[in-house]
Every structure is written in C-alpha cells, then in structure tokens.
C-alpha cells in the first residue's frame, strides 16, 4: 500500500463525507446533543447548605497535597516536633460504636462494633490544617497494620486485629522529608512497614496519636433495580500506652493537645459527634469520628458528559450510513473501481470517519466538561477537583472512545451491508451495554462484566476519580466506577473496532462486490 495512494484514498473519502450535507449535520448534531444534554443536567443540579437557618454555599471540601478532594476529619492528640524525631506507642485495644438503621422509628439504634477501615495510630502531620500533608502508621479494624500518607497512598503491614492479648507496637520516625513506619508485636523485634517522602515538610510538624472511623456504608438493592447507599455514624476508640517521643519536642511531657479536626458544629455551636481523649498516667484513650483519606463526596467532572450516549447514537448512525448507503446504491462498485485495494479503501473510510467523529467528540467533550463544571460550581455543587492532565485525559479519551465506536460501527456497516441491521448491531454492542451497566438494572457483577467484555468498556476512559482500596465505598458502574482502568477500557473498544475492520476487509476481499 503506497503512502501516496492511501493519501488519495483518504482525500476522496473525506470529500465524500463532507459533500453529503445530512452527514455533516449529523456529526454536528451528535456533538450538540452531547453538549446540550450535559449542560441541561448540570444546570438542573443545585446544592446549598443551611447555616443558622439561612441557605449558604456549602464549604468546599479540603484539598490534599496532590490536588484531590480529601476527607480530613479525625481526633488528633499532638505536640510540636522540631526537626527530626520519632514517636513510639503500644496499642492495646480498639473498640467502637456504629449506628444502625433505626428499628423503632425515632429511637437511636447504636451498637458496639467497628467499621472495616476504623483506624488508630501515630501520625506526623504538617499542621492541623485540613488537607495538610501527613504520614501515619495505624492499626485498623479489619485490614491489619497500615502505613498511609497524603490521603491516597496506603501500604499494608501485618494483618490481624489488636487486643489486650495481642497488642501492636507502632513507630513513626521523621528524618528530613522521609518518614518511616515500623511495627512490632513486643516492642523489641521491629519490622518496617514502609517509608515515604513528604516533600517540603516544614521544620516543625505536629506529632501524636489519632483515631478515626469512617461511616458504616450499607448498600440496599431496590425492588426495581438500583441501589441505595447509606453511610451512618461510626466512631472508634483506641487505647495507647508506652508513648515515647524522641527528638526536639516542645513543652512539658504533659503538654499534649487534643484537636477534633474537621468537626461539624451544630447550630448552637456544639460539636456534632465529637471525638475526644483522656489520659491516665502513660495511658491515652482516643476517640475519633471521620476519616483521613480521599474525598469521594461530590460530582465528578465526567458527570457533565451525561449527554454522550445520546450523542454517540447519532454519530454511530452517521458512521454506519456513510458505508451502507454505498451498498444500497451500488456506489461501492464505483468506489472499488476508483480504489481497487480493498484494505486501502476500508482503511481510508475508517480513518476519515474516525477523525471526523474524534473532532466532534473532542469539541463536545471539551465544551461539556469546561462549561458543565463551571455551571455545577456556580450552582453550589462540589466538583471533585482533578489534575489538568486527568481532565485532558477525560476529554481526549472521550473523543477517542467516540472515534473507536464510530469505526466499529462503520466496520459493522461494511460487514452487514444494511443500514438498519448495522445500526442495531453497533448500538447493541456500544451504547446499550453502557446503559444497562450504569442504569443499575443488572446485578453488580453482570454490569461489571459487561464493561469488561463489550466495546462499552471504553467508557472507563471517562472515570476521573479512581476507586480507592483503602476507602469503603459503593464502587459500582452506576456510581461511575468502571472495572477496567481508563486506557485499558479504551483499548478494549479499539480492539473490537480493529477486529471488525479486519473482518470487513476480509469479507470485501473474498467476495464479489
């Protein structure tokens, strides 16, 4: 296949596409539908918070050192550490309370227990400002010892629960920007859990003990499909002893300060679900509510792309018809007389429809995301912040998804040679699985498999916020969480497009036109 020949075929196919007014109108309509539906949905979403009986804008969630929205609500017992140093403790118990759905209406139903990611341990934190950098070594209710830092990073230590009979020793050392976590069963044999860098950590930091418990997440499936996710109050209480500090620690040995970071205040100024700590000699008991981790409450940037399936339907129709109309009118024979290379002709068609739909998708996604997030923020909605690179990936990836779906549709058109059949087939493998998987009419596993195995897997490229293993959540397609990573999902769609194009070329080569 010579490059010049392919260039001519490309130019011819582009002339074909642009010279049918209905197709160009279809491309524009696909983009327009995507944008309008997305913006309409964004414009209809409002969030406000009440304060002293007055509606005010909700406070923006704190943002972590890496730019993500974070949850930074916990109880911290701390002192100031100047320069390098270390903290060592023994954790002897961890208990908690969980609020369950009320069995008698109006009567608070609280039981003993811990949520899986209830956590308590030692921490070094830049400051008591929410969202500031930190590193911590902790015991958890069901995930053993962990070392976490800067909200989104999590490293596992030894598994197992903590109890009086099986206590855990924890140690966290600071050396410059480097923080190293250790654990021990007996305070003599130590093993390293992990070491992390916190670049730009100030000379003086807060060092101390903490406790937190994320809410209890329950997912109930509705009778008509769908899932209701509820998070209820939970708190964790940990007992620490053998508290030892090394390094230049300011103040006297009893100069510990307690801070209920991020606590909400009631209308009368009293804290809502307060934490706290008590000290008896060398023993500290710390109770905390909340979580130190990534924040997932809010709209995602990709929620502004809700018009994409509708727009994609229009673009798929254009892609299919651009080839099946040639079969319908016998024009395919003219095309093959002009470009006898079957592979070259189909490749040129695919490249042109791919490029045209990519452009339409790019324009639609860029306008939807940029204008949509602006509308949402203007309406008081929290939009989970993402890096520019992630936002660009969502926009460009969406355009690539549109292009790959269109090429798949075109290839199906060339395979089936009939417009109605090919449109049906193309929508059945692209838009339909996505709608089924995200409209929560299917069991969760079925929905996930659809988004792994069908060409709809490419919708994963829209997901801007990852599912975090160390945060309990309802990570379902319905909530915008895909089973495949973004580029892997897109690769599945592209693979199907390439396969269909290959089969279409084979059919065109083998048979008479």
């Amino acid at each position, binding site marked *: 296949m*010579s490059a*010049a*020949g392919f260039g*001519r*075929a490309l*130019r*011819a*196919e582009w*002339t*074909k596409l642009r*010279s*049918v*007014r*209905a*197709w160009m109108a279809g491309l524009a309509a696909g983009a327009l539908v995507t944008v309008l539906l997305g913006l309409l949905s964004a414009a209809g979403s409002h969030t406000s918070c009440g304060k002293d009986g007055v509606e005010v804008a909700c406070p923006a969630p704190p943002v972590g050192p890496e730019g993500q929205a974070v949850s930074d609500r916990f109880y911290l017992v701390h002192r100031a550490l100047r320069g390098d140093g270390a903290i060592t403790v023994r954790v002897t118990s961890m208990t908690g309370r969980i609020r369950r759905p009320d069995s008698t209406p109006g009567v608070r139903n609280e039981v003993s227990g811990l949520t899986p990611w209830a956590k308590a341990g030692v921490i070094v934190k830049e400051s008591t400002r929410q969202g500031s950098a930190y590193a911590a070594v902790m015991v958890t209710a069901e995930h053993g010892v962990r070392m976490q830092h800067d909200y989104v990073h999590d490293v596992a230590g030894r598994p197992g629960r903590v109890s009086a009979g099986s206590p855990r020793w924890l140690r966290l050392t600071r050396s410059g920007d480097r923080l190293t976590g250790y654990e021990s069963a007996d305070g003599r044999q130590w093993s390293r859990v992990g070491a992390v860098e916190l670049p730009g950590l100030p000379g003086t930091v807060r060092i101390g003990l903490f406790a937190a418990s994320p809410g209890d997440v329950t997912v109930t499936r509705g009778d008509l499909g769908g899932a209701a996710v509820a998070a209820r109050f939970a708190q964790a209480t940990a007992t620490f002893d053998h508290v030892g500090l090394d390094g230049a620690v300011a103040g006297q040995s009893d100069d510990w300060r307690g801070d209920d970071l991020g606590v909400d205040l009631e209308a009368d100024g009293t804290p809502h679900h307060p934490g706290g700590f008590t000290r008896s000699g060398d023993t500290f008991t710390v109770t905390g509510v909340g979580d130190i981790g990534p924040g997932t409450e809010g709209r995602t940037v990709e929620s502004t792309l809700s018009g994409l399936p509708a727009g994609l339907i229009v673009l798929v129709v254009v892609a299919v018809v651009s080839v099946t*109309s*040639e079969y319908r*009118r*016998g*024009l395919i*024979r*003219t095309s*093959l*007389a*002009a*470009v*006898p*290379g079957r592979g070259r002709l189909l490749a040129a068609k695919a490249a042109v429809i791919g490029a045209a739909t990519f452009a339409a998708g790019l324009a639609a996604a860029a306008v939807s995301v940029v204008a949509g997030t602006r509308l949402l923020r203007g309406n008081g909605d929290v939009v989970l912040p993402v890096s520019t690179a992630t936002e660009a990936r969502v926009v460009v990836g969406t355009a690539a998804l549109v292009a790959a779906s269109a090429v798949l549709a075109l290839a199906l058109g060339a395979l089936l040679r009939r417009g109605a059949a090919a449109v049906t087939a193309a929508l059945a493998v692209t838009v339909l699985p996505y709608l089924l998987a995200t409209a929560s009419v299917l069991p969760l596993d079925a929905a996930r498999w659809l988004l792994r195995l069908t060409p709809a897997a490419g919708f994963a490229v829209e997901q801007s916020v990852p599912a975090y293993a160390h945060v309990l959540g309802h990570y379902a397609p319905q909530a915008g969480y895909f089973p495949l990573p973004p580029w892997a999902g897109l690769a599945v769609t592209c693979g199907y497009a390439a396969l269909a194009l290959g089969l279409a070329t084979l059919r065109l080569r083998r048979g*008479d*036109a």
Partner: protein
Amino acid sequence: MIEVSGLRKRYGQTMALDGMSFTVTPGRVTGFVGPNGAGKSTTMRVILGLDAADGGHALVGGRPYRSLRSPLRHLGALLDAAALHPGRTARHHLLWLAHSQGLGVRRVDEVIELVGLAPVARRRAGGFSLGMRQRLGIAAALLGDPPALMLDEPVNGLDPEGVVWIRGLLRSLAAEGRAVLVSSHLMSELQDTADHLVVVGRGRVVADTGVAELIEAASGGRVRLRTAEPAAAMDALARAGAVVAATGAGTVTVSGLVSERVVAVLGGSGVPFSEVAAHRATLEEAYMELTGDSVEFRAGLRASGSSRSSGSSGSWGDGR
C-alpha cells in the same frame, strides 16, 4: 486496449461466463451485444476487478485492473448510472473520484462541461433524470482521460438529442485513438456507432467481427423481386437453378443467382416484374440470424414476433 481471455465464472448452477474471450482494440468503437443474461455485465465487472473469475484473465493495458495505481487513468467505466448518492451534487461526485486519482477540480469542471451538465453541476444528484445520470456517469468515465472506455448501456434513458450526442462522442473518442467498448442489448443502437462487434450468448463469444462484414454475410447474396406473377417467376427461376421463396404478396426472395441473371431469366421467360434489388440485411437481422441457434435467444425472438429461419453461421460464425 482491453483483453479478455478464457473467462469462466459460475454462480451456483448458472454458468455466467463460459470461456469469454475477446480484445477491444484502440481506435474503434467495439459493440458488446447479446441478450440480457448473456454475460456482458459480468464480463465488465470482472474486467474492473469487482468480481473474481473462476478462470481466465482480463487485462487493461496489459495489466490486471486491481494492480493499477490510478485505475481511472487507464480505464473509464460506466456500469450503473444509478450508483450515486442522492444527497451529493454532481460536482462533488466527480470531485471525490478525481481526488481518488490525484486529479484536481479543474479536470472535474472540464468533464462537466464536456457532458453538458454545467448548469446542474451544483445540484444534488437525487433530483437527476436518468438521462442526466447517464451524462454524469459518462463524465466520471472520462475523468481520468483514459485510453480505454467501457460503457454499459450508455444510451439507456437518453432523449433523442442525447442519443445523437453520445454517438458523436463515442465516435470522436475512438477517433482520438481510444479503445471503446459499448454494450447494448439492442443492435439498432450500435448500427451507426460501432465499427466492430463482439456478440455474446450464454457466457461466450458467438461472433467477433466487423459490422460491415457481418451485414455482408447476413445479406447472403439474396435478391428481392417484386412481380405481379410470383408463381410464374418462381417457376422460371427455379428452373434456372435458383432457390426461391415467396416472402409476401408479390414479393419473392431469390438465392443462388445474382440480380443480373434474375433479370435475364425473367426477361427470357416473359414474366413481368416491377423491381429487382440486392437484399441488404439490417444489423438487427444479421444479429438475429447469428444468434438463432441460441436457445435463450430464440425465446427472445419469438417474444418479439419475428420468425426468421436460422442461416448457416458461415465464415464469421466464430471469429476466434
């Protein structure tokens, strides 16, 4: 030059091509005739590489069509004038074809002018009459200024003015030294256009001959005689050794004697006559005579109400 050699193609039980062989040489218009279903369109599709033959080969300028880099510059073809997207203008239809061959918009405007579509060039082809579509199809065939042209039933749907135009066009294209192949199922369409004929039936060539020779042969040296006394005339001529047949009231066809001898015999026998003329067959008659032994074709003849007995195929029976 287009060379077709030993093409065979079977569609299920039907033998569409059964050893089709002929050559279209430059500088003349070659008529490609035969009843519907004789294999004309299949042959043209094979030449264009659209259908694959089971055997044999077809070459354009010595090469298989599918190996040509800019095929429309080697062979211009009109297969189906209806093969247009109704939403695309005539000009854009030609433009994408031009782009596929590395040609520019100037050549598009030239061929539009040449086929007389300039006033409607920017109108969508969906509203075109069959005649306008034929002109557009011919423009597409001429686009690459090819040395060979192949037109399937180009006269279809043209108005009388268009028929005259296309005859002139085909003759001038041949006069420029191009090889021109024009198919038709109607002999009369080719009478004033073709120099040479390839007559096909049942997937193979029945005759490959010049138009003049064909008519000559079909005329068969017969003499047509008008007389008030046909019985006496037939009697006298039969005695002189001629084969005679009454072909109408007062009309007798005589074979085996030249017209001078017929006049002498009648004069010697005192039979009055009003006209003695050498019979000159039409191309249509020659064609029917030629294809008379084709079963499919007989059915066609009966349907058209003609009843000519089959003659010998003579020296032009199989021109290969």
